[in-house]
């Protein structure tokens, strides 16, 4: 069985054979560009740095429509450009950027299956040369709020039978044993645990451990449906800062074809810090 939207995935060989051009842009999305893009990237790829380029510099929020248009322009992307995203950290942040691109209505968008991990496992070539991109004029669409869950959406969904919450963090984060792994000391919350009645389906259960590629439809279906995350439900994914949940959002929406999936990008660093929010351990 094929993925519901196979057009959103390309593999590393396809990227090798289809370099960027006037109508196709390759974008590396990194959480840590110093240890990623700057050390080497696929020839012709530009960089989107999650922290600098996708987040508002002052308010905790993703970039607004105008900031998004500027970002597209800087990366040489037009409304009809085919964009291929890939990145570090198992494509978590590439998936986050995929979500933001869709939020602002970019249509022709793909993810390179396996990201940097698979590219490196195959010993494919990197360069440190950065592409020179001509600025474009980009007109984004109004945000598609159907893709995004806010705190009030999650609060309202508590106890609803038709909504299912998917917590994609590790079991230790879900149980409240830790609020963030030691590698991310800046991402703790005041309380540990999870949103009441959430299902713990870690993001990693959707990928093949060996190379970071997505699992088959049969495996993914079993993974989610066995825990009550079915296509008829309104699904809200969350993690700690919204990046791993974008990865699971991508799986549910584009690989399995669920129609009502939202990413709660406020995630645990919002929920677990708010006074009075219910927490389950």
């Amino acid at each position, binding site marked *: 069985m094929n993925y519901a939207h196979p057009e959103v995935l390309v593999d590393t060989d396809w990227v090798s054979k289809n370099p960027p051009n006037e109508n196709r842009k390759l974008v590396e999305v990194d959480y840590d560009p*110093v240890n990623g893009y700057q050390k080497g990237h696929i020839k012709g790829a530009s960089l989107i740095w999650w922290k600098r380029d996708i987040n508002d510099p002052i308010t905790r929020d993703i970039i607004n429509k105008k900031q998004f248009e500027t970002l597209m322009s800087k990366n040489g992307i037009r409304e009809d450009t085919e964009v291929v995203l890939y990145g570090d950290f198992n494509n978590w942040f590439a998936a986050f950027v995929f979500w933001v691109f869709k939020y602002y209505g970019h249509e022709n968008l793909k993810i390179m299956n396996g990201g940097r991990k698979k590219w490196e496992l195959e010993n494919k070539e990197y360069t440190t040369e950065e592409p020179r991109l001509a600025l474009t004029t980009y007109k984004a669409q109004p945000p598609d709020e159907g893709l995004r869950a806010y705190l009030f959406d999650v609060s309202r969904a508590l106890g609803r039978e038709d909504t299912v919450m998917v917590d994609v963090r590790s079991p230790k984060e879900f149980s409240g044993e830790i609020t963030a792994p*030691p*590698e*991310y000391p800046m991402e703790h919350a005041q309380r540990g645990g999870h949103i009441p009645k959430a299902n713990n389906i870690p993001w990693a259960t959707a990928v093949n451990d060996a190379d970071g590629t997505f699992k088959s439809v049969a495996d993914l279906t079993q993974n989610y449906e066995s825990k009550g995350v079915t296509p008829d439900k309104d699904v809200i994914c969350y993690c700690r800062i919204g990046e791993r949940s974008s990865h699971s959002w991508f799986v549910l929406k584009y690989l399995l074809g669920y129609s009502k999936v939202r990413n709660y990008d406020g995630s645990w660093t919002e929920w677990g810090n708010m006074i009075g929010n219910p927490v389950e351990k």
Partner: protein
Amino acid sequence: MSLDPHILKNGSFYYIKDGGADFILEDKTKRGLTVKDTSIDEKLNVKADKGMIHDMDGIGHWVPIRWYFSKALFDFNKISEYAEAMEKKYVELRELTCPDDSD
């Protein structure tokens, strides 16, 4: 039988353990961090287990988790000196971020 090395000295922010041929100085603030590399720490010029911590911007920084001091080259007092310097650094940092107003 416990496989953990015997603790020779226990500070608020460090352990000094008996690692057989080495004294092992361990930074307690790096507890739980995954060891991703073992190589020479340029500051102390001894072998160290290192992990990576990501800052506010997501940039990863290599940090030593524990250092291995050969007993043939270092005596315990020297390790204690390094440990106390580390302790002092963390105490000062704690005072800076969470000052004790009691006095």
